[in-house]
């Protein structure tokens, strides 16, 4: 009995006297921010939710309305669009770099990358980096970078989207995602058809795309593929009288282009240890096409790319270093002859970020690169271009939400095959375009509120551009290096949730882009709008409904080729778009109306130097698209 008493006493003492209570605080979840690049430049993120709320039908229109990027589109279908950031005109697509999951999509010729290659449904987010970043990405990262990140989730899913609308638009998209043991995979089929706004303006695209990912204990291996067939008809440009008579007519019924595209990518991520990863990207892109532009032609390009890259930390410093190697083959066969080029590009880069303290971060980096070209056209010549870019920058956090940054960033751009093929007779190969940007800005992010302000100056030497001046030696104009050019500007961006249901967003971009010397000194660079404004309002109501309304103002601009600024300024114009969306469990219906007030404006305008009138590519009038989506799993 005594033993039992002692045992109970001991037990009570044990329970109450020496116990250590542990109280569990609710789990703190830290979400991974969308942006994860080492660039200190200002970034703007367009999330998948933004794209869906906006009812975006293609990437080009989303970049214009949510990213403040200026577009020039000659086909009206969104595939061959010049993306302009920081005041570039006809050479915009060679000074704005498109990345897909961080892989640069550059062409050996001046053709812009196909923005319709990635269906909106596959995009997780788009990261728009305003500013030069050749240290990290090399050639063409001059005015800005658009990085399209595709969806990386492998939750079991089967979804189907069907859409129909004006101009006989019919889009269908089906995607299946699943995991088999440790193997994650996704396959999608996408088909798109439109008769286009104008006559002889059909557009067809069919594509098969997918991903297979194998994660293992020390890394992951991923294979992405995309095979697409595309056919588009070119209605051509119209004169002012023709536009007045009927803006939907075509100036020809023969021009078209049809092509096969292949994109294959292997990504390997190897965890070397707790602080270092080795990432290797191996990519092949292939395009083979034929068509008619006044006369028939065939065109092909093959791009092979490999980039091993080390990312890690040394004493709290973030370090990345890598090299890239690319070979491009390009061939154009026309009735006037053959242009053939074999290009090789090499690059070596390194960048280090040093956190001085909790508030201040410094960054320094450099890249050297080289391009060799073996060009065969009416004559044969080999050229070597070299590029070097460095950047230095700092980031200071006043508070956890308010950031100030200041940076100098170098850039370069190599001449393209068809630019080198059309120069003045005494020029054998264009020089490398070199640039230096000075950028500074403030960024404030608090909960769902975002405010960004940036001011910049971009100085370029030997800017590569098309000179429309016609001479007996060059009856169609030539490509050349310009004397030094400068662009200055600023931008303001704001996202402001009024309450839980209503969110406002808006951007204003100003750029002063003028020729700095030569006969056109002081003139505005054609195709560049000094002012771009966009604003949107997103309203959620009645639990399942959502409305998005946007306004896009594009300031006036001189038409392409009007370097002398003697033609009429085109625009500016404001267009309004509207989208209403209904979501109920696994079903979504979306109705989008573009150009609500049926504004007449032009996608692209060209000035004819010796025939003093402009030709126009009219933009679609009011049009709509109804999309229905169902998730089966």
């Amino acid at each position, binding site marked *: 009995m005594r033993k039992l008493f002692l045992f109970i006493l001991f037990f009570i003492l044990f329970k109450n006297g020496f116990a250590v209570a*542990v109280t569990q605080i609710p789990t703190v979840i830290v979400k991974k921010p969308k942006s994860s690049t080492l660039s200190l430049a200002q970034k703007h993120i367009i999330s998948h939710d933004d794209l869906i709320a906006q009812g975006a039908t293609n990437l080009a229109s989303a970049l214009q309305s949510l990213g403040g990027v200026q577009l020039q589109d000659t086909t009206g279908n969104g595939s061959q669009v010049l993306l302009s950031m920081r005041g570039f005109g006809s050479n915009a697509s060679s000074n704005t770099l498109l990345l897909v999951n961080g892989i640069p999509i550059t062409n050996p010729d001046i053709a812009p990358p196909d923005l319709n290659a990635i269906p909106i449904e596959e995009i997780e987010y788009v990261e728009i980096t305003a500013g030069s970043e050749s240290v990290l990405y090399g050639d063409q990262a001059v005015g800005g970078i658009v990085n399209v990140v595709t969806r990386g989730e492998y939750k079991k899913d089967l979804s189907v989207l069907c859409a129909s609308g004006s101009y006989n638009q019919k889009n269908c998209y089906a995607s299946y995602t699943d995991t088999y043991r440790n193997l994650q995979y996704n396959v999608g089929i996408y088909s798109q058809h439109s008769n286009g706004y104008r006559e002889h303006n059909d557009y067809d695209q069919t594509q098969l795309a997918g991903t297979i990912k194998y994660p293992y204990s020390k890394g992951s291996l991923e294979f992405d593929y995309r095979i697409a067939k595309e056919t588009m008809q070119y209605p051509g440009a119209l004169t002012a009288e023709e536009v007045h008579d009927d803006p939907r007519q075509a100036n020809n019924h023969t021009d078209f282009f049809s092509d096969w595209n292949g994109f294959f990518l292997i990504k390997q991520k190897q965890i070397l240890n707790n602080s270092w990863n080795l990432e290797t990207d191996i990519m092949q892109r292939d395009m083979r096409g034929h068509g008619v532009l006044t006369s028939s032609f065939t065109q092909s390009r093959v791009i092979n790319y490999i980039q091993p890259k080390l990312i890690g930390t040394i004493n709290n410093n973030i370090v990345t270093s890598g090299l890239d190697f690319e070979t491009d083959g390009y061939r154009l066969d026309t009735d006037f002859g053959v242009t053939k080029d074999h290009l090789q590009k090499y690059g070596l880069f390194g960048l280090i970020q040093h956190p001085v303290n909790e508030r201040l971060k410094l960054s320094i980096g450099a890249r050297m690169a080289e391009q060799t070209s073996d060009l065969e056209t009416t004559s044969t010549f080999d050229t070597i271009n070299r590029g070097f870019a460095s950047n230095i920058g700092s980031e200071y956090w006043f508070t956890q939400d308010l950031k100030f940054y200041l940076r100098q960033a170098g850039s370069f751009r190599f001449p393209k095959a068809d630019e080198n093929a059309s120069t003045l007779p005494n020029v054998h190969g264009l020089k490398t375009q070199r640039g230096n940007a000075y950028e500074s800005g403030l960024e404030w992010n608090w909960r769902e509120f975002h405010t960004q302000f940036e001011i910049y100056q971009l100085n370029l030497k030997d800017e590569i551009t098309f000179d429309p001046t016609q001479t007996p030696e060059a009856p169609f104009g030539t490509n050349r290096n310009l004397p030094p050019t400068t662009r200055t500007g600023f931008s303001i961006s704001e996202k402001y949730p009024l309450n839980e249901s209503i969110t406002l967003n808006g951007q204003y971009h100003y750029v002063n882009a003028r020729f700095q010397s030569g006969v056109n000194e002081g003139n505005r660079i054609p195709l560049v709008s000094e002012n771009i404004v966009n604003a949107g309002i997103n309203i959620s109501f009645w639990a399942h409904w959502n409305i998005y309304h946007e306004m896009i103002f594009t300031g006036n601009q001189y038409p392409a080729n009007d370097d002398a600024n003697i033609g009429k300024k085109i625009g500016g114009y404001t267009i309004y778009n509207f989208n209403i969306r209904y979501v109920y469990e696994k079903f979504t219906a979306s109705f989008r109306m573009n150009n609500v007030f049926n504004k007449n404006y032009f996608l692209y305008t060209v000035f004819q130097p010796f025939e003093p009138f402009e030709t126009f590519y009219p933009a679609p009038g009011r049009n709509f698209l109804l999309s229905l989506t169902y998730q089966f799993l």
Partner: protein
Amino acid sequence: MKSRYFYLSLLIHSSIFLLPILIVMPNEQALDQNVIQSFVLDMDEDLLFKREDLAKRERGFLQPLISPIIKNSNLSLLKKPGHEKLNQSAQPLDPHVLQKAHAVPHLQSGNDKVNREILKLLHNQIALKQKYPDSALLLNQSGTVTIRFMLYPNGDMNDIRLSKSSGFDILDTAALAAVNAIAPFHDAHLYLQKAELFSVNVTFAS
């Protein structure tokens, strides 16, 4: 056609590129030890939460693996910057605690509303200080870190230690830094009459 300058630059840049690889190699052992450390901490937590059977099983399983590594490594982790806190937290828990501790789901004040308020306050304070480390983002690291700390009525915070590692030093250090940053917790006197032991999971979601 290439100049000597080009080849010289190529050589220099190649060397710079290879340098990090040479730096990386000696750290391989540290990785092994970090993994083991994570297991050891799991084991400690099992003991803390009176799961001796689990702890015993883990100890039995790990002992032959841990011993040679710890012996050979000569505590190389101590030499790595930013690891002093980690190593401090990786030290074995007080045997007294190990033997007698048990988990209590609520504060001893017994007032649920008050309990909820302080838990919410602590959660919000830590969440406010917690950032996803840039380096972890670039290295694509994610995971959950468990931190334990003793909070006194005067707001002092002691014994802030890692009780479960995410497996990544960068995330562990960031979570420890965030919890350290909320000290002193001045509102503690409103809710506590005596020192209390708290635990928080910080999940860095991918």
